């Protein structure tokens, strides 16, 4: 059985700016993780169901449109409903400082704004993804 960390990278909402999502997907793959990229225009339901089907350890959400305070709570709620509480959710994109405490409160601690080194994201995921048996 593969011990690789499994990551679902998703683009929720209507935004199509996928440069960041694709660069991160490739960087995580090059770092030895198993990466599933959902493509564009995913609802929280679609993302959580992809995580379930793919047995993901980590969900990476790329959000640049300002919709994170709507999308993140819904994803966290659905994960809880499906019993996937131990799936680590990280987000990347344009996230104002004022939203950080609220996102932390939901259990999202890996929040990466523009300019974050890729190695930093790889290290964070490696340290925080649930242990694979």
């Amino acid at each position: 059985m593969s011990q690789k960390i499994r990551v679902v990278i998703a683009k929720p909402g209507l935004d199509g700016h996928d440069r960041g999502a694709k660069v991160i997907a490739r960087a995580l793959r090059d770092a030895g993780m198993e990466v599933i990229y959902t493509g564009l225009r995913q609802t929280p339901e679609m993302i959580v169901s992809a995580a379930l089907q793919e047995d993901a350890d980590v969900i990476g959400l790329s959000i640049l449109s300002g919709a994170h305070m709507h999308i993140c709570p819904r994803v966290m709620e659905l994960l809880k409903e499906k019993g996937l509480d131990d799936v680590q959710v990280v987000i990347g994109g344009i996230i104002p400082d004022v939203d950080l405490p609220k996102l932390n409160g939901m259990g999202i601690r890996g929040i990466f704004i523009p300019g974050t080194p890729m190695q930093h994201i790889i290290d964070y995921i490696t340290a925080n993804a649930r242990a694979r048996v």
Partner: protein
Amino acid sequence: MKTVADSALTGKQRWERDVLEPALRKSPEREGPFTTISGRAIDRLYTADDVAGLRDAGNPGEFPYVRGIHPTGYRGKLWTMRQFAGFGTPEETNQRYLDLIAAGGTGLSVAFDLPTLMGRDPDHELCLGEVGKCGVSVMSLADMERLFAGISLADITTSMTINSPAPMIFAMYLVVAEQQGADWKTISGTIQNDILKEFIAQKEYIFPPRASMRLITDIFAFCAEEVPKWNTISVSGYHIREAGSTALQELAFTLRDGLEYVQYGVDAGLDVDDFVPRMSFFFNSHSDFFEEIAKYRAARQLWAEAMKHRFGAKNPRSWQLRFHTQTAGVSLTAQQPYNNVVRTALQALAAVLGGTNSLHTNSLDEALALPTRETATIALRTQQIIAHESGVTHAVDPLGGSYFIERLTQDMIDGTLKYWATIDGMGGMVEAIERGYPQKEIAEASYQFQQAVERKEKVIVGVNEFVQADEKPIEILYIDDTASSVQLQRLAELKQSRDNDRVRRTLEALKAVASGDGNTMVPLLECVRAYATVGEMCDALREVWGEYEEVPVI
């Protein structure tokens, strides 16, 4: 003393031997790499040797227009200072426009929110949290009336960044103009209306490529008759560059997109000289100063030659490439945001030295949020300082004849022709996109750039070098959900108050034309007059044509 060997050397080779090599032995150069932001190697010195054999760049106002389309450059008319803005409700954005006009802005540029750009009404499930966030929400003619309240469409030019729903939004603008009593024959402005770069880069597509191309040629034909001064398309490299392409890829793919539109127009039975003069372009201005200037100069020559020789255009206006420029959003950093003012000023200067016809300068806080009123003003002031204080506007194409610039310009031209040959070999740009060719090229370039940043081969001040630990956060524009609730309520009220039978009839008429081969602008104007929503009009066409889904390329 001159030896035999000396006479066999060029001036540059002799200099390298006699002057450079001893100097390098004493003090070597920095490690480099000395490459542009696009990864192109740059020589240490350009001399007459580097331009030997190149054709003379000619003069401004003359074919092939390398040095500009106007004989007087900016001495006649400065570029249009067109600041892109939009957020929240139509009323909030209307206020920002009135502010920009009062501050000396000379054209409007509308940013729509994602639901509008994607042809969805705010009550669709994918619009969760998106209404009024990245731009202004425009659902129906009623919102367009609010957006331009107190602004005379006869007296201002408006650029609208809208692509898949361009025909619907344009129809709304035309109806507002009609209500104000403005003449369609004299109003002017631009719709972006460039779907190919959406498939390639920004991904705001709705319908499949061929149906999308038909909407565009319908607009070409409609405007040639009805709105002759309107710029029917702004073929855009901006988004291609933001998605991570090199400068050369931006140039080559954008102009090749332009050729594709011309070909589709010709295939639809239009005369080149009837619609090409109303085509315009939109480029990025990134941080690599000289590479950008060369790109704009090359663009003019490539377009002029392609129109004249490939399409047999006879009207000089068809040969003249006009373009808008926006400084590179992707170059802005969330870290030490005030540094972005300097980046933007340099990028704006490159666009001006390249002869841009209009310009948007980004605000310092745009890696964090939409700009505040204050930062948007500094961005406009940056253009005004270049225009009125720097003196760069006095002489036309002031860098023309520089060995370096002319060499770079020629290399941009040669590289573009190579890309065109590849794309022509695939059958055209639509076919290349269907194969994922430009998408793959861009994804690869963007990954290579990111790797270079990680290795610090490319320095980004404040991000991978000169990092500051104790940064104080700046105040940003925070857009709450008020706009969303206002727009949702308005949508419900609209559906109560309008004549819904009329809406149904006009939508049916739209579907009938879309299934046949009439011009879709005609039934769309009727839908708009009946206050059909953007979502309803797009849904009607989704029923006829289906929706496009891409296979993602990583």
